[in-house]
């Protein structure tokens, strides 16, 4: 650990844009308001979709006088973007658009986004911020294992790394053994990609008989999919690196919306470019700081496709307590789930990911589980069905009873509800291709 620390740049070099990243809240809010007003004016004048929406809501751009007035604005949803396919929400003519990306929709049309030259410059700078916060400098060799193409991950991290002046290796995804060889031969010091792929690379490395000592890696910057503290620790241990998480979504910009500093206590949101709110996903009402709800983002500087109150469907909470890195930007917790899969049990919001984490911690292996919601009288019940796989079965009755108790107790302390635990035989829970269906709701409302 001490050798790792020695190889990190000194603190003052861990800010890419110190003036912006450490500005006082007062200055920041003034800047945000100016930029919000300009953005609302821009979309009202240039995007028929927003003009109609604002008119229907009875809001004029000049009604935005304080930051709180953002709540008067209508939300933008993924469906709005699909309906506008491909260029309906663009606020700049195509002659000013220099890049187009799209996010793959698993269902329906994809969503298309366009960047002006200034958007691209801002984007590079925002990614440079998160790279710097994660310990990357111009001396680093950055191995990018994100796919390049319509997906924003590859290009986003690429431009940011170039902006910093690092040596960038655009490996893209796939052919994992080759990735390991390239990291070794090219002396990569920073790995960029999704956390699940990083773990896969690590496992492949061990299978190839390559030890982490043969690599020069020291930091990893991961994003584009949900992560967990358990997963982070596993990656850090296997690759012997410091790993930070970053967050973004293509609709809003791509990577660069927020990123962790090396304190690893939440992701600093680039608030000079994005206005973040947390709302109750059911009612749309703003929630006070510290409450978990849906993240809603308004872009403050985008020209190509500015978005008002975009509903990310990602669940997180905000934290404005000071961070020793010096950044004044608020931090969002690692995304805890999607509004699509939030369960409300006895009035408590519970995410399958929370329960999955508990199981992962207890069993130490990828759990096969299913959550069954039901109602007895007026009371909701949660049953956690867990497969007793050969890996966790050691043949003792006491071991099984202990396992049940542990799961019950941990879920109780993590989520605030007491479940019943059912141990079931291997393969008795249905498998599905891709995203597993983990929740069965038998309640009648």
């Amino acid at each position, binding site marked *: 650990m001490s050798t790792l620390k020695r190889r990190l740049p000194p603190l003052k070099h861990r800010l890419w844009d110190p003036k912006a990243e450490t500005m006082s809240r007062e200055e920041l809010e003034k800047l945000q308001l100016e930029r919000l007003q300009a953005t609302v004016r821009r979309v009202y004048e240039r995007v028929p979709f927003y003009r109609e929406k604002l008119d229907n809501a009875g809001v004029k751009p000049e009604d935005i006088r304080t930051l709180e007035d953002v709540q008067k604005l209508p939300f933008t949803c993924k469906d709005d973007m699909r309906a506008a396919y491909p260029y309906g929400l663009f606020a700049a003519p195509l002659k000013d658009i220099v890049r187009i990306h799209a996010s793959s929709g698993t269902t329906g049309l994809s969503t298309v986004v366009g960047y002006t030259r200034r958007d691209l410059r801002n984007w590079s700078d925002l990614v440079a911020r998160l790279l710097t916060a994660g310990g990357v400098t111009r001396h680093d060799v950055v191995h990018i294992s994100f796919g390049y193409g319509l997906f924003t991950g590859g290009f986003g991290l690429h431009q940011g790394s170039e902006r910093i002046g690092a040596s960038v290796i655009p490996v893209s995804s796939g052919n994992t053994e080759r990735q390991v060889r390239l990291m070794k031969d090219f002396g990569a010091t920073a790995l960029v990609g999704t956390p699940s792929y990083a773990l896969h690379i690590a496992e492949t490395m061990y299978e190839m008989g390559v030890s982490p000592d043969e690599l020069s890696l020291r930091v990893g910057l991961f994003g584009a999919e949900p992560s967990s503290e358990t997963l982070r620790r596993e990656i850090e241990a296997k690759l012997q690196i410091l790993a930070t998480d970053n967050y973004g979504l293509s609709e809003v910009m791509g990577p660069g919306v927020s990123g962790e500093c090396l304190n690893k206590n939440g992701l600093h949101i680039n608030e000079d470019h994005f206005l973040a709110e947390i709302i109750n996903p059911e009612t749309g009402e703003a929630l006070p700081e510290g409450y978990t709800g849906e993240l809603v983002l308004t872009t403050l500087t985008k020209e190509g496709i500015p978005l008002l109150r975009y509903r990310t469907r990602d669940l997180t909470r905000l934290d404005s307590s000071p961070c020793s890195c010096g950044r004044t930007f608020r931090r969002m917790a690692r995304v805890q789930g999607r509004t699509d899969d939030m369960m409300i049990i006895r009035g408590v919001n519970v995410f399958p990911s929370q329960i999955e984490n508990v199981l992962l911690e207890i069993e130490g292996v990828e759990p096969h589980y299913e959550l069954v919601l039901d109602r007895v009288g007026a009371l909701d019940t949660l049953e956690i069905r867990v497969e*007793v*796989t*050969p890996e966790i*079965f*050691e*043949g*003792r*009755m006491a071991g*099984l*009873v202990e396992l049940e108790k542990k799961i019950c107790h941990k879920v109780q302390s993590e989520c605030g509800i007491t479940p019943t635990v*059912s*141990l*079931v*035989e*291997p*393969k*008795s829970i249905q498998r599905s291709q891709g995203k597993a269906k983990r929740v069965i709701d038998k309640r009648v409302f």
Partner: protein
Amino acid sequence: MKVSQITVFLENKKGRLAEVTEALASRGVNIRAASIADTIDYGLLRLIVSDPVQARQALAEAGFSASETEVLAVEVEDRPGGLASIIRCLADAGINIEYLYAFVGKSGEKAIVVLRSEDTERAREVLQKNNVTLLTGEQVHRL
């Protein structure tokens, strides 16, 4: 060779016990002794079989969670007090018995009891010191 017991995790569902035994039969595995410990929702089936290696393979292929545990197979005089004297010497040595069950067959005039204690090595020593006959794996699995 040690005496090996196979433990199978079973949900309390209709037909599961039949499926376990059929899976073993299809591989020509003979069951020497069996016992079930159960709760409301699931149970543990403990088996002494003719061929533990084959048995584990058969069970894994049929999708069961099974594990292997070392147990002691003890010869017991087939008369009143036969078992009691053996348990007494373990109790006097302060060794707890987790569970025990009897064999289907006999070796000559004596009955056989399968016994699992929290400390197998010490239990073995104590029993041998008291002149109790312990069967080897070869003897038990090929009975």
